[in-house]
């Protein structure tokens, strides 16, 4: 079913437009990089602030929630630019091992982040569980980024 979806994308006018353009992929990829920097920064500071490891915010949960909206916007930007990059050659990405790994890791990272958010109740943060959960989520997001780099090298 995914195979059909990717094939349909490959046959679409959007995909043809991206493939034929001399600048589209470049611009899209640059946007992806900028969003990556922002998303990573938000994750780092939010995560470290939440666990009180590097930062002392008076209200840890409030700090996380305040960064959350920016983080979600950055993630939306990453997803959108990512989908457009795939459009440059959908079948190539479909079969690409590093791309598949990245998607799997992305799913796990999202789940881990959801678990962290579930555990946040104003004022009631359990230290050990949260530190472990936050660290796991951050590591998974890092793995997503590394897998993304592998797409270019293989």
């Amino acid at each position, binding site marked *: 079913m995914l195979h059909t979806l990717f094939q349909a994308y490959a046959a679409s006018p959007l995909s043809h437009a991206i493939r034929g353009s001399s600048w589209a992929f*470049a611009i899209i*990829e*640059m946007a992806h*990089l*900028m969003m*990556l*920097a*922002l*998303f*990573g*920064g*938000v*994750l*780092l*500071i939010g995560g*470290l602030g939440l666990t009180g490891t*590097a*930062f*002392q*915010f*008076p*209200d840890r949960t*409030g*700090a996380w929630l*305040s*960064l959350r909206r*920016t983080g979600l916007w950055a993630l939306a930007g990453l997803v959108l630019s990512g989908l457009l990059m795939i459009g440059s050659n959908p079948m190539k990405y479909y079969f690409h091992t590093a791309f598949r790994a990245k998607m799997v890791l992305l799913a796990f990272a999202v789940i881990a982040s959801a678990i962290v958010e579930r555990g946040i109740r104003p004022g009631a943060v359990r230290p050990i569980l949260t530190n472990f959960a936050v660290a796991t989520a951050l590591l998974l997001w*890092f793995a997503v*980024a*590394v897998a993304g*780099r592998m797409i270019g*090298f293989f």
Partner: protein
Amino acid sequence: MIDLWQAIYDTPFATTIRESEVVFPVIESVHVLSLALMAGTIAVVDLRVLGVVLRHTPAVRVERQITPLTWLGFAVMAASGALLFIAEAADLKHNPAFLTKVALLILAGVNMAIFQWHSRPRLAGLGAASRAPLAARLGAAASLALWACVIVAGRAIAYFHPH
């Protein structure tokens, strides 16, 4: 008259990195992924000064806590960037994207110096609820724009690789 860029490019050290199977990709990956540590943290501070995030904490406190992380990120970016430069020196000499990136880095540095000298003292006395002075907010906006352009110029370097 020696061409310093070519001289660096021709050294065994530079050649080894440039022709490596794993080392170059790793250095390049470290450089790109450290963006989150450096530019990402700068972006969060800028967004605080602009009043977009972390509004319950005074801006100066956010800046003071995050800055060590930014410096760590900068160290990693500078080191990896230096290695990439050494490996590709001769090819970069006439690369408009690289030259632009260097100019933008200098501008970003100047902007940060201005922030430290001018805006930071003025933010020190302000509580979390206060709006940052105009100069500080403009500096934060300029910082976001400059670092975004640094990233764009950095990615564009590959597009002007001579062959």
